[in-house]
């Protein structure tokens, strides 16, 4: 009987990981701005970059898991704002209590996710269409309802409400490391990316997510509840939108009802740069964090380098293109097996 397990050199194992392209990208982009923008070299710049990255990265972890499961969510960008609005208006107009507003927003966000998933499995339409519809509907509702309730495009300042300080310390506080301020959002982002990675690689549900996205029919044939997995993934995205929405609410005290549009594409871009395949069945939650980090460095790097911030979107596009080509090339080389 031959022994089957062949031990591979570490570098080959690393090269086979989906996030390897993003890791290379992180190093390149970091080196680029390190050379081009002197202020970028300070520690305080790093925390600013990480904070910027965390506001993309928190939903991007969930979006990456959803994409591995074979679906898109275009509504995630405005859903973050919807959640902030729901919490803020429910707290001020209905309950008069911040915590009930927060809980209301949680159920609201989970319900949007569940609705996306339910519509998807019921109509059997592509998730692009289903979530594009929810995206447009939420975009309209966000502004329309805010105007109706407050007579304004932004919500009232909630910083005077009882319970605000506790909620703010949970969702939007910061702490000092040495003499730089570190936002707690960064900590949550890293924890979420770690949990996402663990779930994907080490749990049964994670295994199912890869199978559902990779080959739905096969997954069904071996008894995996494909529809439940998909609805669950949309709800995870809903949860991440709520979480970021609460951070935004307590960081700024008021909510601009038109905010968030376009961010859904940055979440998807982070996931794709991090190694997710558009066709599903392949990708990484940790990779999405690296992808978000790249975009965080780019946003801030452009500012530190004293360039026009409009260059940011150009960089996002170029990075996405490079990363997809590179990831595809790596994957073919790594998965072709022997050499």
């Amino acid at each position, binding site marked *: *009987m*031959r*022994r*089957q*397990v*062949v031990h*591979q050199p570490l570098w080959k194992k690393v090269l*086979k990981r989906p996030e390897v392209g993003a890791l290379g990208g992180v190093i390149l982009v970091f080196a680029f701005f390190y050379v081009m923008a002197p202020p970028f070299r300070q520690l305080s710049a790093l925390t600013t970059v990480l904070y910027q990255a965390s506001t993309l990265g928190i939903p991007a972890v969930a979006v990456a898991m959803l994409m591995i499961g074979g679906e898109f969510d275009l509504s995630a960008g405005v859903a973050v704002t919807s959640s902030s609005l729901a919490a803020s208006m429910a707290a001020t107009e209905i309950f008069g209590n911040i915590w009930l507003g927060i809980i209301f927003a949680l159920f609201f966000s989970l319900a949007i996710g569940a609705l996306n998933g339910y519509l998807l499995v019921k109509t059997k339409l592509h998730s692009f269409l289903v979530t594009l519809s929810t995206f447009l509907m939420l975009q309209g509702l966000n502004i329309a309802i805010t105007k109706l309730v407050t007579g304004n495009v932004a919500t009232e300042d909630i910083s005077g409400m009882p319970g605000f300080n506790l909620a703010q310390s949970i969702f939007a506080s910061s702490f000092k490391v040495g003499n730089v301020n570190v936002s707690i959002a960064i900590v949550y982002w890293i924890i979420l990316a770690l949990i996402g990675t*663990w779930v994907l690689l*080490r*749990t*049964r549900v*994670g*295994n199912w997510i*890869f*199978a559902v996205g*990779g*080959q739905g*029919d*096969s*997954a069904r*044939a*071996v*008894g*995996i509840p494909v529809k439940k997995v998909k609805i669950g993934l949309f709800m995870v995205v809903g949860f991440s939108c709520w979480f970021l929405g609460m951070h935004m609410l307590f960081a700024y005290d008021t909510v601009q009802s038109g905010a968030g549009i376009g961010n859904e594409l940055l979440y998807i871009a982070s996931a794709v740069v991090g190694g997710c*395949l558009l066709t599903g*069945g*392949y990708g990484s939650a940790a990779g999405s964090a690296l992808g978000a980090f790249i975009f965080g460095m780019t946003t801030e790097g452009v500012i530190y380098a004293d360039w026009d911030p409009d260059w940011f979107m150009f960089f996002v596009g170029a990075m996405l293109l490079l990363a997809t080509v590179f990831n595809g090339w790596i994957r073919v080389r790594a*998965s*072709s*097996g*022997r050499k």
Partner: protein
Amino acid sequence: MDMSANPIIQLSNVGKSYGNISALKDVSLSVRQGEVTCILGDNGAGKSTLISIIAGLITHDTGTYAVDGKAMHFNSPRQALDLGISAVYQTLALVPLLSVWRNFYLGSELMTGVAPFKRLDVKKMQATAGEELARMGINIPDLEQPIGTLSGGQRQVVAIARAVHFGARVLILDEPTAALGVTQSGIVLRFIATAAREQGVGVIFITHNPHHAYMVGDHFMVLSRGEVETDTARANLSLEDLMFHMAGGAGLNALQHELHRNEASAPV
């Protein structure tokens, strides 16, 4: 091969019709441990209907279908599977981008730890999948490689080995060599023989290739338009006979006569 053993499954005069159309008529078949039964036939001969009945996808109208001597009417493939009757279809139920060991255990993952830290027992699954595949004579150097990178024949044997590992006593293989080249077919045929002889599995091998059937078969059944054209053990049949029956049997004789007569009566 132990012909005296009781059959695992036994079909007696099984038939199935859809309205006036009879898809299958009077088919009798037994599958014993370690025996390879080949079912051959042209398209529309009733092969699919027959295996669908055996696998529990559809139920028969007439005759009896007994498993371990007990008459059965399956309502779902799950019931058949619980009795160890497992079908491997051409689609294989594999996920190409997942690794070999993850595919092997997909849907039946081994777990360790307690909630909420219940997790995949990766080490055990890797080790067991490796041992099981090796035991069944399948050599795959790297179990971490995506199963989509294996050859068609290797994917087929991994799918079969998975069914055997999860308790299949009767394996229904639906045209496992249909889409494969000569070398790849060889891998699969060799494995079918191993699964039957060494693992003691009863195999129902559906094919329309008499050469492939004759290489591994103990018993042959040729179906034609829903009826049994030939049903015989290997000892009573040569490859030429099998090809002849496969090509149309008695019908072919008549056709030959007819053509011959036309030829003779044609003006020279």
